[in-house]
C-alpha cells in the first residue's frame, strides 16, 4: 500500500473514532503537541494511559471484591481513571467513570460492580482502537510518510 493510501486510511479511521465517541478533542490536542523534538509524544502518553488504567482496573476489582467495600477508596481509583482518560481524550471511558462515581456516592454495590464491567469494556475497546491507530501511524512513518493532521472543525 502506498503512503497516500495509508494516510487516507488513517484519517478515515481517526474520524470514525471521533464520530463514535471513542476519542474527543483532547486527543487532537495531544497530536498537535507532538513535534520533531518529541516525535513519540502520543505513543508515550497513550502507553502511560494503558499502564495506569490496567493497574487501576485491577485495584478496582480488588476493592470491590472485599466483604466490606471501602467506597472512598473505590471512588479515589475511579477519580484517577477519570482523570487520565480525560487527559488523553478517551471520552467513553471518562463518561463511564463519571457514572461510576455517582454510584460510589450512593454506595450501591451492585451498580458499582456493573459500572466496573462497563469501564473495563470501554477501556478494552479504546485500547484496541488506539493500538490500531498508532500502528497505522507507525506504518506511514516507516514508509517515509508524515502523519496527516486531522481537521475536525470542533
Amino acid at each position, binding site marked *: 500500500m502506498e503512503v497516500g493510501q495509508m494516510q487516507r486510511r488513517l484519517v478515515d479511521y481517526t474520524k470514525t473514532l471521533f464520530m463514535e465517541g471513542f476519542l474527543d478533542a483532547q486527543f487532537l490536542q*495531544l497530536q498537535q503537541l507532538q513535534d520533531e523534538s*518529541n516525535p513519540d*509524544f502520543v505513543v508515550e502518553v497513550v502507553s*502511560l494511559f494503558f499502564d*495506569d488504567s490496567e493497574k487501576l482496573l485491577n485495584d478496582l476489582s480488588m476493592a470491590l471484591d472485599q466483604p466490606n467495600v471501602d467506597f472512598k477508596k473505590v471512588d479515589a481509583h475511579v477519580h484517577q481513571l477519570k*482523570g487520565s482518560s*480525560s487527559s488523553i481524550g478517551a471520552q467513553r471511558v471518562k463518561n463511564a467513570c463519571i457514572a461510576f462515581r455517582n454510584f460510589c456516592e450512593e454506595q450501591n454495590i451492585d451498580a458499582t460492580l456493573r459500572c466496573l464491567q462497563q469501564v473495563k469494556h470501554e477501556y478494552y475497546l479504546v485500547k484496541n482502537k488506539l493500538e490500531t491507530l498508532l500502528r497505522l501511524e507507525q506504518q506511514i512513518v516507516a514508509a517515509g510518510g508524515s502523519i496527516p493532521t486531522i481537521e475536525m472543525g470542533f
Partner: protein
Amino acid sequence: MAMAAEAKFHVLAVDDTLIDRKLIEKLLKTSSYQVTAVDSGTKALEFLGLNNKERNSKADASVDVEVNMIITDYCMPGMTGYDLLREIKGCSSLKDIPVVIMSSDNIPSRINRCLEDGAEEFFLKPVQLSDVNKLRPHLMRSRSKPNINKRKAAEEIVSPDRTRTRFNQAEERSSSPN
C-alpha cells in the same frame, strides 16, 4: 555571568499523576517555558526552599534557579494544591511567585477559595494550550514588579470560560489587558 534578558520563564509544575505531569510539561515547553516537574507539594517546597538558600547565599551568580511561576494540581495525596498555595503565600520569600491551580473537578466553592487565597488562575483539566497562553501576562507582571505583595480581596468574575482569574483593582496595576 549575567542572566540573559531573554531568559526563559521557569515554571514549576506539580502533579501526582504521571500522565498529567507529562502533559503539562509538554504544554509549557511548547510555549517556550523552562519546566521543572515534581510529583508532590512536599517536593515542590523542597525545590523552592533549595532555590531560596542558593539565591540568598549569592554564591554563584551564574546559577539561575529562579522560579517564576508554580502551576499545581489541586487533588494530590498528602499536601493538596490548596495546601501548597497556602504554604507559598505564607512564606515571605515565596509569596510573590504567581500560583495557578488545576483541577479535573469543576467545584465553584473550591475555585473561589483558591482564587481568594491568592491563586492567579484556576484551570479545569485537561489543560489546553489556550490556557497556558493565559500565563504569560502573570509572568511578565511578576518579572517587572517583583515587590507586589499586597493583594486586595479578590472579586471573582464568573465567566462561561473554563478558567477563572482573579480580578485585581485597577489602581494596583498599570493598564493591562485581562
